[in-house]
């Protein structure tokens, strides 16, 4: 692996770890209001400064990371899992199942994912679970389509034909032959998807249809800092930079996997 990918891998791991172990890194309550210490710029005492209610921005960024990343990873894994299975089955079984599934995916693409997400959150309420479900639903189609395309091109290959001639059941062919060969594409898609999902959750939170205050989330914090751009730039900027760093790292890792200089081969 090139040093650059290692660097970004390390960065990502650092951010994820920092968020996961937030309580260890900061003994401050992210929601602790202290109206005497509002709008403090970044100091040694408050690394990221404080916001309009005197809450420590660094702590909130860490805890917000917990929430945003947890949502992101769950959604990516769920969307990836269901999408890939659907794509594989669709490619392998073909016929009406394939047509029906692709019709559903196409229908989903008729609406921008954000709209769909907003609709469902609006209707079912913005709980954490709902957000994960919504983002998953908005995303699985991507996996289904791409994995299906991969599997379709594999299906024509000789080794599949040989397996079928030897009497393998469809499930066996899918699990033992198709699955391992789409593994690489799948891994690349997963990593690249993380960024997209973080964007989506951040956008939802930004417009108020995602993680609800006072729970911290990167998107929500950026939204809250919006009104204080000139006076307290750190409120929006710092969580935003952490978000960018996270997305940047996962994108870079995804790309290096794509180029083949990653661990998988």
């Amino acid at each position: 692996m090139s040093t650059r990918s290692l660097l970004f891998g390390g960065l990502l791991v650092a951010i994820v770890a920092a968020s996961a172990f937030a309580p260890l890194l900061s003994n401050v309550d992210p929601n602790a209001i202290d109206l005497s210490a509002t709008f403090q710029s970044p100091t040694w005492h408050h690394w990221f400064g404080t916001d309009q209610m005197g809450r420590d921005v660094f702590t909130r960024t860490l805890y917000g990371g917990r929430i945003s990343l947890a949502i992101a990873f769950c959604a990516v894994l769920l969307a990836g899992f269901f999408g890939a299975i659907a794509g594989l089955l669709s490619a392998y079984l073909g016929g009406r199942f394939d047509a029906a599934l692709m019709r559903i995916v196409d229908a989903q693409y008729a609406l921008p994912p954000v709209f769909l997400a907003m609709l469902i959150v609006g209707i079912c309420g913005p709980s954490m679970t709902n957000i994960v479900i919504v983002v998953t639903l908005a995303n699985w189609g991507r996996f289904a389509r791409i994995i299906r395309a991969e599997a379709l091109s594999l299906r024509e290959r000789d080794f599949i034909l040989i397996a079928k001639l030897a009497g393998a059941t469809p499930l066996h062919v899918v699990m033992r032959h198709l699955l391992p060969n789409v593994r690489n594409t799948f891994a690349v898609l997963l990593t690249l998807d993380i960024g997209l999902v973080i964007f989506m959750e951040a956008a939802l939170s930004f417009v108020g249809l995602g993680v609800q205050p006072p729970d911290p989330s990167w998107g929500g914090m950026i939204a809250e800092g919006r009104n204080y751009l000139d006076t307290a730039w750190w409120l929006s900027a710092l969580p935003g930079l952490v978000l960018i760093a996270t997305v940047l790292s996962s994108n870079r890792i995804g790309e290096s996997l794509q180029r083949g200089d990653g661990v998988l081969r």
Partner: protein
Amino acid sequence: MPAYLLRRAGSALLTVWLMSVLIFVLVRLVGDPAYLLMPPEATEADRQLFREQLGLADPVPLQYARFLAGVLRGDMGNSFHFGAPALSMALSRLASSLLLVGISLTLALAIGLSLGVAAAVRRGSWIDRFASLFAVLGQAAPPFFVALLLIRLFSVQWGWLPTGGHGTWRHLILPVCALAWYSAAGIARLTRANMLTVLEADYIRMARIKGLPAHVVIGTHALRNAALPIVAFAASQFGVLIGGAVAIETVFSWPGFGSLMVEAISTLDFTVMQAAVIVSVLLFVSINLAVDVLYALVDPRIRYQR
């Protein structure tokens, strides 16, 4: 080719129909509007009257039929909140967003294609590295965040441009830049990758062997062959940008489709939600259809196969 198009058109209509069913069902899942929208002191009789007025007391299939008939007629009821016809609200706000997204996508294509081609042709040069940086950052920074940065710089600090609202061309600049960067990044990337592949092809070598001038080799031969996936990508970016515009419209108080959705959902304005979804679906399905046609026009192999 006509047969191909007919099939795609049929498929598109089916999609629209499916989505109409979906939104119809979804909206009714929220709960009884008679409870949600009426004040708590209202009596049961009032609520029943409300239901009957909205046609909610009838059996569901009938409601759907009426809804569908309304859609075909162009009447989707009035907004609960504003009283104005939902469809016209959706359409006017859509036009506003389309302006924003259209200009952004055009700008993104112009920048993305130029950077991508330049980076591929001058591989390893400073323009290649700049393009990479541009692309990497553009895809890592959420457009709404970029928007805030731009506002901080250009509105707050230097006062050159307004912080929000609409009306003059000045109001367009910042939102367009914020949106365009994200798409331009993806387009530049894809263009560069495709061009690099195409430039290795034998027919490019042949074009050079023929002594054709560089702009013909790159423009007519290379770019045309690299174009198809880029076109498809740009079309898909349209949907992405409409989605991304949701946050951007909030930041700039731009009266667009995305912010309409947000408002409608926040206030549980069903008719507007329905109208917005139907309009949106029709739009995207048409775009996808147009892309399919474009594909067939550009690549003669598809045309003759089907």
